[in-house]
C-alpha cells in the first residue's frame, strides 16, 4: 500500500503530489470507509459527513424503533404489586348439585404495622384508636413501641374502617388482604365439606380433597393465582335433601334418645351421594368444634356390626351361587349350636321357612344355613367381592378399615351371615346393597356428579340380574307384607322396600342385649330402584310408642320413612298412584312365597 496511516503528509492542503502515472488498484470497501472517516482533507470531508449522518440516523432510528416497540409491549410490571400470600390462599367455591353455595371465600383485610417505620408513635396510637375505639390504647402503644418488624393491629377489619385508616395517611401502617372461608349453611353437610384452617388450607372432607387433587394440580399449572379463575367444585349433594335428612335424624335422636345417628341418601344408578349426615356434628365455620372425637363421620369412619341388614348380602350370595333358590326351604325349628354358642332367632318361628320368609322374619338360623350352604371360603370370597373386607376409598380423605376376624371358621361365617363379627363402615354396606338392588353393578360411592353411563363403565358385575330382582322382591315384601319389619318406612306411592338391622353392641367385650345399634336400608321404588336411604341409630331406647322394642323396625325404620316422605318431592322420583304392573316377573314365574 502506497499510503499508510498516519498519512505521510497530513497537510496536503499546501502541496499536491503529482498524479502518479502508475495506476493503482481501487482499494477495498472497508479500506475506503476507513480512509473516508479519518482523512483530514477538506475536499474529502463530504463523504465523511454523510457517513457520520448515516450513523447518527441509524442510531436514532434504532432508538425510536425501540421506543415505539417498547410502548406497544403489554404492561407486565404493574401486576406484581400485590403480595403472593393472597394469591396462595384463594380456594374455589363448593356448590351442591343445583349450584347452591356450600363454601365460599370472603375477602377481609387485616391491619398491621411496621413499628420501625412509624415516625410519631403517640400520634399513630391516637389516630388509630379514634377509628377503632375497641382497641386498647395502651396495648397498641406497647405493640408499636416494640422492636419487631411486623405486628398485627387488628385482624379482619371492615371496609369502612380500612378506608378511614387509609385516610389517616400514617407511614408504617398497612393492610393485608386475607381470604376467609365461609360455610353459609353451618352444620348442614359439615361432615362432607370438612373444613379449612386459618390460612385456608383444606384440613378435612372435600376441602382436603380439593387441596390434594384439584387445587394442587391447578396451582402447578399456574391457574390458582386468582379465586375468580377457579371454577367452583360441584358436589353430588343436594342441600335440601341434606338438610331434611339431618333434621329427621335430629328428631330421631331426640325421640329415641339415641347417642348418635347417621344417614345417607344415594343414587343407586350412579353411586352419587345425595346426602350424608352424621350426628353429633359440628359447624365448619368454627373448626375447633370438629376435633371432638364424638363428632367423627360415623357413616364413613365409624365401623359397626351392621346386624340383619347384612342378611341381604348373605341371601344374595346364596341365591346367586345357585345352591339355594327362592323356593328353597330352611329349617328354623331349632337353634344352631356351636360349642358354647347358641344361635337363635329374635322373632322365633319354629318351623321350616322359605327364603322370602327367612328374610322378612329376619331369621338368624335360616340365614346362617344359607351361608353354610355356600361354605366358609365362598362366603369370604363373596364378601371380598362386595368390598366388605377392604378399606373403601372415596373422595373424602377419611375412611376406615373394616374389622375382620383373623381366623375365619364356620362359626364366623354363621355370625357374619347375620351381621355380627364383622364391622364395616356403613357407607361400605350401602355400596354393597346398592349393587344388590340395581341389577348387580357395583361401583364406589362418589361425592362428585357422575352419570349412569360413567358409573356403568367403572362398575363390576357382582351378581346376576335375576338375583338382583329376587333381592328387590324380598325387600319390597319386607315392607309390604304384614309380617315384614320394614312396614314403617313404606310410604304410600313410592313402593319402598327395605331391610332392618339390629345389632347387639359389644360392651366390654360381650353383648349384653341392652345396647343396640340399629340400621335401616330402604330402596325406592323397589321395582326399579333409584335411591337407597340408610339410617343408623346408636343405642336407641325403647320409648313410648315402640311397645318396649328397641329394634330397627321401631326406630331406624320410621326415621327412614320420615326421610323418604320428606325428601321424595326433591328427588327424581315422582309419586305413583297405581302399583307398578308386574314388578317382579321372574319371581311370579317361579311362584315365590308371597307372590300369590
Amino acid at each position: 500500500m502506497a499510503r499508510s496511516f498516519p498519512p505521510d503528509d497530513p497537510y496536503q492542503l499546501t502541496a499536491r503530489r503529482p498524479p502518479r502515472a502508475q495506476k493503482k488498484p481501487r482499494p477495498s470497501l472497508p479500506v475506503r470507509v476507513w480512509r473516508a472517516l479519518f482523512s483530514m482533507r477538506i475536499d474529502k470531508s463530504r463523504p465523511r459527513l454523510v457517513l457520520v449522518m448515516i450513523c447518527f440516523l441509524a442510531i436514532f432510528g434504532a432508538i425510536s424503533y425501540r421506543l415505539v416497540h417498547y410502548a406497544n409491549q403489554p404492561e407486565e410490571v404493574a401486576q406484581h404489586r400485590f403480595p403472593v400470600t393472597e394469591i396462595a390462599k384463594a380456594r374455589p367455591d363448593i356448590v351442591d348439585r343445583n349450584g347452591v353455595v356450600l363454601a365460599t371465600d370472603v375477602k377481609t383485610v387485616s391491619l398491621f404495622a411496621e413499628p420501625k417505620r412509624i415516625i410519631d408513635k403517640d400520634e399513630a396510637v391516637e389516630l388509630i384508636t379514634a377509628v377503632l375505639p375497641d382497641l386498647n390504647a395502651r396495648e397498641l402503644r406497647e405493640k408499636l413501641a416494640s422492636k419487631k418488624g411486623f405486628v398485627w393491629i387488628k385482624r379482619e377489619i371492615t371496609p369502612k374502617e380500612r378506608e378511614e385508616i387509609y385516610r389517616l395517611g400514617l407511614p408504617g401502617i398497612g393492610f393485608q388482604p386475607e381470604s376467609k372461608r365461609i360455610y353459609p349453611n353451618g352444620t348442614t353437610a359439615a361432615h362432607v365439606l370438612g373444613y379449612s384452617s386459618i390460612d385456608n388450607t383444606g384440613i378435612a372432607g372435600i376441602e382436603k380433597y380439593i387441596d390434594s387433587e384439584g387445587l394442587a394440580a391447578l396451582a402447578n399449572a399456574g391457574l390458582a393465582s386468582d379465586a375468580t379463575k377457579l371454577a367452583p367444585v360441584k358436589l353430588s349433594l343436594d342441600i335440601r335433601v341434606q338438610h331434611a335428612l339431618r333434621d329427621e335424624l335430629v328428631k330421631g335422636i331426640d325421640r329415641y334418645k339415641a347417642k348418635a345417628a347417621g344417614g345417607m341418601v344415594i343414587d343407586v344408578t350412579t353411586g352419587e351421594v345425595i346426602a350424608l349426615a352424621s350426628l353429633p356434628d359440628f359447624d365448619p365455620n368454627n373448626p375447633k368444634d370438629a376435633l371432638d372425637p364424638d363428632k367423627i363421620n360415623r357413616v364413613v369412619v365409624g365401623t359397626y356390626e351392621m346386624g340383619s341388614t347384612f342378611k341381604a348380602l348373605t341371601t344374595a350370595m346364596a341365591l346367586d351361587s345357585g345352591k339355594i333358590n327362592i323356593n328353597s326351604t330352611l329349617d328354623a325349628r331349632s337353634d344352631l349350636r356351636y360349642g358354647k354358642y347358641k344361635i337363635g332367632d329374635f322373632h322365633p318361628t319354629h318351623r321350616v321357612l322359605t327364603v322370602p320368609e327367612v328374610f322378612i322374619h329376619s331369621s338368624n338360623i335360616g340365614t346362617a344355613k344359607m351361608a353354610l350352604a355356600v361354605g366358609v371360603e365362598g362366603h369370604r370370597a363373596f364378601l371380598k367381592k362386595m368390598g366388605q373386607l377392604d378399606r373403601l376409598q372415596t373422595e373424602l380423605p377419611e375412611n376406615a378399615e373394616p374389622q375382620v376376624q383373623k381366623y375365619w371358621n364356620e362359626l364366623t361365617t354363621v355370625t357374619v351371615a347375620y351381621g355380627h363379627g364383622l364391622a364395616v363402615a356403613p357407607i361400605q354396606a350401602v355400596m354393597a346393597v346398592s349393587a344388590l338392588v340395581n341389577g348387580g353393578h357395583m361401583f364406589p360411592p362418589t361425592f362428585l356428579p357422575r352419570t349412569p353411563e360413567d358409573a356403568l363403565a367403572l362398575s363390576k358385575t357382582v351378581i346376576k340380574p335375576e338375583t338382583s330382582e329376587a333381592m328387590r322382591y324380598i325387600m319390597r315384601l319386607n315392607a309390604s307384607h304384614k309380617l315384614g319389619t320394614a312396614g314403617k318406612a313404606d310410604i304410600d306411592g313410592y313402593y319402598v322396600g327395605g331391610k332392618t338391622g339390629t345389632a347387639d353392641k359389644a360392651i366390654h367385650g360381650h353383648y349384653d342385649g341392652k345396647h343396640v345399634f340399629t340400621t335401616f336400608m330402604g330402596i325406592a321404588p323397589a321395582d326399579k330402584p333409584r335411591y337407597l336411604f340408610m339410617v343408623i341409630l346408636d343405642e336407641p331406647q325403647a320409648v313410648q310408642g315402640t311397645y318396649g322394642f328397641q329394634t330397627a323396625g321401631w326406630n331406624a325404620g320410621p326415621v327412614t320413612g320420615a326421610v323418604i316422605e320428606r325428601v321424595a318431592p326433591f328427588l327424581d322420583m315422582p309419586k305413583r298412584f297405581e302399583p307398578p304392573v308386574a314388578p317382579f316377573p321372574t319371581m311370579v314365574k317361579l311362584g315365590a312365597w308371597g307372590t300369590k
Partner: protein
Amino acid sequence: MPRIFHALAIALLIGSAVYVYKIKYETMGLRFEVARLEKQIAHERDLIALLKAEWQKLNSPERIQMLSDGHLDLVPLKASQIVRWQDVPERQAPVDSIADKLGALGLAEPTSSPKSPDITGSVKKKD
C-alpha cells in the same frame, strides 16, 4: 430558504415534543384509570362474593325452617297431599244461604222508595 427550513424544523421538533409529552401523560392517566377500574372490579367481585355468602346464609334450609316453625302454621308436606289432577274434586257451586233466604222472602225485588237523584247524603239540597 434554509432559515425557513430551520424555523420549520425547530417548530416541528417542539411540536412533536409537546405531542409526545401529551400522549405520555394521557397514557399515564389511562393507565391509572385502568388500574383503578381493575381494583374496583376486584372490589365489586369481593362484595358480590360477600353478598352471595350472606344470601345463602339467610337462605340456608336450617334458618328457613326455624323461621317457618316460628312464624308460620305450615307443616311439612305429606305424601298423601300429593294427588293426581283427576283426583282433585270439582269445585262446589257456591251456596249463599242468606241470599237464598232473602230471595225466598222476596226481598231481592226493588222496593218503591222515592227516587231523588240529587240526594247525596241524607240532607236534601235547598234551592
